[in-house]
């Protein structure tokens, strides 16, 4: 056996505890990630394949596979692929994320009028 060559997603046959059968309802952002993937993968757009999504998930980096939730892995992989495929640039993603966080904070905690 060469356990060190097993990649983090390749789980068949490993030891683990009882199955947690609690289910959470999908949050809106999780469904949104699913929808983004389906749109990018559909026949008309054909921007990324499921195989590429999976490869991206497997290669997020050491420890990340276990640390992220299911749809966190998806959006992380999708984002990396969109950069690789020259559809989005790192700089614009960074600026957009900062803008969204600022918008959200202002919406939640509007600045007091002086």
């Amino acid at each position, binding site marked *: 056996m060469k356990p060190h*060559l097993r990649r983090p997603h390749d789980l068949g046959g490993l030891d683990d505890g009882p199955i947690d059968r609690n289910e959470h309802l999908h949050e809106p952002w999780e469904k949104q990630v699913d929808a983004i993937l389906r749109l990018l993968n559909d026949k008309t757009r054909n921007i990324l394949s499921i195989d590429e999504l999976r490869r991206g998930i497997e290669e997020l980096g050491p420890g990340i596979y276990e640390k992220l939730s299911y749809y966190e892995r998806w959006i992380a992989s999708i984002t990396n692929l969109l950069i690789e495929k020259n559809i989005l640039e790192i700089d614009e993603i960074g600026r957009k994320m900062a803008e969204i966080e600022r918008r959200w904070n202002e919406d939640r905690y509007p600045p007091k009028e002086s």
Partner: protein
Amino acid sequence: MLASYPPGHIRTPFFVRGKSGIVHDILGMYRNPENLAYGRVDADNKYLLRVLFKQKDLWQSYNGSGHDSIILDLYEHWLESSGIHI
């Protein structure tokens, strides 16, 4: 199955590599995910086969029945012939 451990995106799980099973049926030709995963638009086609393994051949201390089995969908280039035809 090949006992092969290359890097990269592979759809042959670790737990069947180097194990023996029998071809249950042939599903047809599908594009090779090992190339599709890297955005290769000219990805080749491979035969995809359903391969049946006996559980007791996979795990040393299998706790179920001797009949129990598992089927995986595996691409042709991962199979190597045992020379036995049933």
